[in-house]
C-alpha cells in the first residue's frame, strides 16, 4: 500500500514531488507510488551540481533490475545539491521516498512554476486506488 502523499509539497503528473525549502530552493524526489512502480531500485544516476534544467527536463535516471526511467525536474533552475548517499544506498528511495530518499535540490529560476504543479489531493486522485500498474 502506498504511503499517503504529504500535504506540504507539490506534485507532477510524472510522479515527482517538490518541497519548497523557503530559501529559493526546492528539494525533489519521487513519490512512494512511483517507487512502488519501479520495484527495487538498484541505481540512481545523480546529475552534476550546477546542471541547469527547464521544467520537466529529465534531471536524473533511476534504474531497477528490469527497467530504466527518466525522472523529470518539477521546476526550472540549477542543481545545487544531490543526495550522495543514494550512490551507496539507492534503496533509500524505495524505503523513504518522501524523506531520506530525496534526490536533488534545485535553485528555482521561476518560483511561480510551483503553483502550476498539483497539490497532494489532486495527485492522490490521479492514482488508481491500491493498484499495481505493471511497468
Amino acid at each position, binding site marked *: 500500500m502506498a504511503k499517503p502523499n504529504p500535504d506540504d509539497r507539490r506534485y507532477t503528473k510524472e510522479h515527482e514531488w517538490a518541497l519548497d525549502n523557503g530559501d529559493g530552493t526546492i528539494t525533489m524526489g519521487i513519490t512512494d507510488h512511483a517507487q512502488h512502480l519501479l520495484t*527495487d531500485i*538498484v*541505481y540512481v544516476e545523480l546529475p552534476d551540481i550546477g546542471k541547469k534544467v527547464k521544467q520537466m527536463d529529465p534531471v536524473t535516471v533511476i*534504474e531497477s*533490475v*528490469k527497467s530504466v526511467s527518466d525522472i523529470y525536474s518539477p521546476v526550472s533552475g540549477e542543481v545545487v545539491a544531490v543526495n550522495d548517499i543514494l550512490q551507496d544506498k*539507492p*534503496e533509500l528511495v524505495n524505503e523513504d521516498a518522501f524523506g531520506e530518499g530525496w534526490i536533488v535540490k534545485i535553485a528555482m529560476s521561476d518560483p511561480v512554476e510551483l503553483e502550476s504543479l498539483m497539490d497532494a489531493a489532486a495527485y492522490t486522485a490521479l492514482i488508481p486506488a491500491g493498484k499495481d500498474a*505493471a511497468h
Partner: protein
Amino acid sequence: MDLIFEKSRPGRRASEIPAGDVSPVALSEVIGEAFLREDIDLPEVSELDLVRHYTALSRRNFGVDLGFYPLGSCTMKYNPKITEESAKLPGFTGLHPYAPEAFSQGNLALMDELRRMLCELFGMADFTLQPSAGAQGELTGIMICRKYFETKGEKRSRILIPDAAHGTNPASGALCGFETVTIPSSTEGGVDLTALESAMTEEVAGLMLTNPNTLGLFEKNIADVARIVHERGGLLYCDGANANAFLGHTRPGDIGFDLIQLNLHKTFSTPHGGGGPGSGPVGVGAKLVPFLPVPRIVKIENRYTLAENFPDTIGRVKAFYGNFNVMVKAYTYLRLLGAAGLKRTSDMAVLNANYIKARLAPYFDLPYDRTCMHECVFSGNRQVKSHGVHTLDIAKRLVDYGFHPPTIYFPLIVPEAIMIEPTETESKETLDAFCDVMIAIANEVEENPERVKGAPYTTPVRRLDDVLAARKPNVCWTGK
C-alpha cells in the same frame, strides 16, 4: 561450486610449452624491463582439475540437447551434429583470412554459394555475410539506409519502429543517429495503419518491421504497409529474426521489403553457444546493392576473388569477412534440407506453435486470438489477478519440471508476457509434456500459489538475488 581460482594451487600446471629450438634472448634488454609485466595471475591447476571443473560447470547448464527450450524469437531448434563436424574440418579452420586466394577457393566458394541460396530463399538481389550477429546486421542495414538517402541528397532523420519490436531495433537506429518514432500495434496485433500513415513523412527513412512480429503474427496488411512507406520514398526493412515461420512459403523481397537481416544462429540451426557466436547476414534489393559492405566475393571465370572497389560502400563493420565458421554450419544445413526441407521446417514450426496455443488457451490469457505463426504469446495476467502469481514465478516453476522457460516479459506490449516458440524439431510428445506441465502449474496457482512463488526448488541454486547483483556489482573475483 568453487571458482577455478579457488582450486588453484601454486606450482600446478596443465599445458606445457615446447622447449624452444631457437636461442632465447634477454628480454629485459631486448624489450626493456619497464615494458614487461611483473607476474601473471592465472589459475594453477592440473589438466584433470580443468576437465572436472568445466565438466561440472556444463552439468549446471541447460542446452537444447538436454530439453525443450521454447524461447520466443530465439528459434532454439536442434543443431545437427554433421554441421558441427563440417565446421571442424582443418581445411575450414586452418586458414588465415589473408591467405592467398589460391589457397582459399573452397572457403570463397562456400560463402558465395551461401549468399546465392539466401538470395533465392528471401528474394533479394545480394547478401553480405559480414555482420557477426543479428544486432550488427541491423546496424549494417540501417547504415545502408542512411547512405542511400545521403547519396540521394535527402535528409531523413527518423525511423519508425513498432512498439512490439525487439530492443536491438531502436538501439541500432539510435546508434546511427536516427530518432526513433514508435508506431503502436492495432487491436489485431499488426501495425496500426492510421498511425503509420500519419507518421510516414518525407523525413522518415523507413519502417523496421519484424515479420512475423514478436507476437508471432504475420502482418496481414503488408501490402498497405509497404505502399505507405514506399509512397513517401521510404525503405521497408525486415527484421528477419522470425524467418523460421515462412521459409518456402513467401519471400520478403517479393512482398516489398527492401532489405532484411537474418540470424544464422536462429533460422539456420547454428548453435547458440551460450550467447554466440552468431552471424547476421543482410540481404538487399537491387537499388541498395551499391552500399553493401566490402569486400565482396566476385567470381571471374572459375575463380573466386575478393573485391573492394565499390565506391558507395558503407565500409566495414568487422575485420575480415564475417563469422566464417558459423557460415560453414549454416551452409551444410541448407544443403541437407534443400527447398523442400526448409518448407517443411516452417510447416512444422507453425503447426507446433498453433498446437501449443490450442492446448493452453483455456488456461492462460491469450491477448490475440488468431492463428499464430511459429510462436504464440500468452499473458500471465489471469494468474496475477487471481492469486498474485506472476509470469516470473510460472517460469521458475517450469524449471523444476525440466523445461527451459519460454521468453518472459517480452514483447513489452503484452503485460506479463509468455512468448513460446517450440520450433519444428520438437515432437508431439514433447509439446504435450510441456503443455501438461503448464496446465499443472496453472492448477497449482489456484491450489498452492505460494509454492509457485518460491520456485525453483530443484536447481543447483534457488532463486537468485538480482537486485543485490545490480546494487553491489561484483563482476571480478578479487579473492574475497
